[in-house]
């Protein structure tokens, strides 16, 4: 498969899977304002996923539209990082997962908005506005929870530690990522990582949270289709109708 198509699928799948996780929380947030914000972020990510997947399908040229890509691939054909498929856990997990992702997403998509590829730059620029807000929100909440009560500090620190091992994959470039970087599309891994670490470090400092070691052991596999056991369940649920009623229009 073409590297650019693959790269677009990674972008699309990240947004799609995280959106799906957030949408599990509809009406179950810890405050009404959070309910609204969660749904809003889910909606933004879904919109972005649709743009990336549609573009991937067009480039691929096999007639797969956004729905064919979202609903008719099995887990091993999904290319999202492991981070986004992790379960919602308690709300600290949900927020820290979001913050880790948003920070990466912000710098990644920020770079894509400057990229040589016109269509990618266009989608990225459109998404960046939303992502800027996402990052502001999730960073702000991490600060407030880290520097809130003893309990919220503990929960947030635990979530930060537990999810840390899923953050490295984004910066471990493989041949596809490297090809995109060489083509002036993706940002260089080292730059992205440095930006991410700096931003997470700033927020954690403000949040009075201890930042886990950047050299800690990192899990990987999601980008190349080796996921955690969670993704299969997520897809079984998400894809049910398309699978059960093949060919139907909705």
């Amino acid at each position, binding site marked *: 498969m073409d590297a650019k198509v693959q790269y677009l699928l990674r972008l699309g799948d990240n947004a*799609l899977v995280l959106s*799906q996780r957030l*949408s*599990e929380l*509809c*009406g*179950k*947030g*810890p*405050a*009404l*304002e*959070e*309910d*609204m914000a969660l*749904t*809003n972020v*889910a*909606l933004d990510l*879904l*919109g972005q*996923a*649709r743009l990336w*997947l549609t573009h991937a399908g067009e480039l691929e040229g096999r007639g797969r539209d*956004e*729905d064919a890509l*979202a*609903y008719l691939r099995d887990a091993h054909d999904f290319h999202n990082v492991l981070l986004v498929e992790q379960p919602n856990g*308690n*709300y*600290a997990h949900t927020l820290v997962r979001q913050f880790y992702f948003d920070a990466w997403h912000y710098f990644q998509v920020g770079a894509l908005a400057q990229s040589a590829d016109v269509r990618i730059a266009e989608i990225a620029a459109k998404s960046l506005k939303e992502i800027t807000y996402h990052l502001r929100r999730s960073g702000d909440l991490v*600060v*407030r*929870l880290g*520097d*809130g*009560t003893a*309990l*919220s500090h503990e*929960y947030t620190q635990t979530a930060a530690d537990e999810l840390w091992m899923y953050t490295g994959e984004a910066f471990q470039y493989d041949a596809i990522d490297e090809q995109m970087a060489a083509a002036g599309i993706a940002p260089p891994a080292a730059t992205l990582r440095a930006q991410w670490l700096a931003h997470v470090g700033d927020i954690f400092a403000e949040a009075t949270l201890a930042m886990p070691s950047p050299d800690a052991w990192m899990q990987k596999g999601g980008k190349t289709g080796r996921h955690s056991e969670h993704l299969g369940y997520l897809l079984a*649920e*998400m894809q*049910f*109708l*398309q699978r059960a*009623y093949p060919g*139907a*229009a*909705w």
Partner: protein
Amino acid sequence: MSAEERAFQARIDDGIRIEPKDWMPEAYRKTLIRQISQHAHSEIVGQLPEGNWVTRAPTLKRKSILLAKIQDEAGHGLYLYSAAETLGVSRDELLQALHSGKAKYSSIFNYPTLSWADMGAIGWLVDGSAIINQIPLCRCSYGPYSRAMIRVCKEESFHARQGYDIMLALCNGTAEQKAMAQDALNRWWWPSLMMFGPSDANSVNSAQSTQWRIKLFSNDELRQRMVDQTVPQAEFLGLTIPDPDLKWNAERGHYDFGEIDWAEFHAVLQGNGPCNRERLRTRVKAWDDGQWFRDALVAHAEKHATDKAAA
């Protein structure tokens, strides 16, 4: 009636809105708090039956529309709680009443959503009924409530249209999809009619609410409006309304329809609907699980207020 009460009623009769700072009878305040908060609670609990299908929406576009709808509902909850707060009660107190089972929410949300077609039926029938209930309230006597209703109704009419559009797609789809749509109509029809409340003959407190202009039409009038509006839509979809007594009455210029199963209505109201326990538990759990989160936000704000004061 005291002079104050007479002046109050005169304002209402003249079509002048009552605003929070105005004098109002305690019973008016209480009735409004009950009515507005029940509506707010319904918006909040109403997220759940739809949330049940958002993760399984059949296309990304439909998922996106459904997410937006659920977000609107949370938003409606927010304005309605704010409207209630103008009457001197806090959102937390209102939620407390919901969680303890003291306050009600619309019974319709105690029915399960069993197929994707239910997303269509809820938009079409439940939001459809809600709009019929709410449109008159845009002109109700209490200012903040009337303004909240104007905003809500605008969005609800989108939701109703989107629901109908789901039904339309199903009815134009495969035989299985059409059967799904019919099944959803079968399950949601009667509960939607029950949304208007007991028959006028058995409705308490209506007269006072009518006089105060916080109830502008009788339950039966509004229910008739719903039937009259919906029957042709069902016909257009090619679906059959599950009521053998349904028939156009040329003399009345309305559809006649069968007797509502009030025993079911009361059973659900008393907590015996298929999902009463789960809906309330889900909300209570969300609230309880979120305690540490809300506490943290308060603690953080206080700390930093102190920082600033100290600086």
